[in-house]
């Protein structure tokens, strides 16, 4: 599995306007709707499910990244939106630091193994200092798409 398999290019937001966690989640879910990946009518339900999930335990794993996610029956395939916040957002992260990179992942409930594969893929790249640094500096969708392509081209393991 590659990042490009599930990151929706049209749902990349290089400059998030929202400055709070819930606003960022809504913006990214709306991006997936604008890209035609989910029904506009489902945006609020899905955003609420992610927020509820986030309230049970932050997906801000530290180092300025968060991976909010949910398995939802309205979702037919694994997909992700990517957002970058120049100013940083409070995600109640483990290390209490602001979050600059948000990868929002949606999965169908009946594919838990695929969900884990996607998470492994996301974290394998987010572990790399350079990937995080360059993502944080990327100001356009094209730059983020290029970073994703480069990451996918790297040998695994």
């Amino acid at each position, binding site marked *: 599995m590659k990042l490009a398999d599930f990151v929706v290019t049209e749902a990349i937001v290089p400059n998030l306007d929202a400055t709070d966690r819930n606003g960022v989640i809504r913006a990214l879910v709306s991006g997936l709707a604008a890209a035609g990946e989910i029904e506009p009518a489902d945006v609020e339900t899905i955003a609420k499910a992610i927020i509820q999930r986030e309230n*049970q335990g932050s997906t801000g794993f530290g180092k300025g990244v968060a991976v909010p996610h949910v398995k939802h029956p309205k979702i037919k395939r694994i997909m992700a939106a990517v957002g970058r916040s120049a100013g940083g957002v409070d995600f109640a992260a483990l290390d209490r630091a602001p979050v600059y990179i948000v990868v929002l992942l949606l999965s169908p409930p009946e594919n838990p193994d695929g969900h*884990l594969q996607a*998470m492994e893929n996301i974290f*394998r790249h987010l*572990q790399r200092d350079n990937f995080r640094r360059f993502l944080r500096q990327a100001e356009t969708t094209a730059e983020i798409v290029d970073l994703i392509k480069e990451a996918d081209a790297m040998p695994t393991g």
Partner: protein
Amino acid sequence: MAENSTHIEREVTIINSQGLHARPVMRFVDIANQFQSTVKVKKGTVSVDGKSPMEMMLLEATSGTRLQLVADGQDAAALIDALAKLVADKFHED
């Protein structure tokens, strides 16, 4: 190595249907961090720090996956017991 340091290894199997996803990882790491001992979690040739949530997500441990827990330190036995119980209890899921 401290005088009372012990080395303990134990194999566990992930049995909750959703596998080792984010919430179970957080519970695992929370427990691991309550102990002084170090803990490595191994799946085949992949070995990660059991106290790091980002590294733990790299295990891609689906339901049925066998993991080797390797703890070193004075409270290694208690650490392994606590983590093995969490896994056997399906991380309080299902």
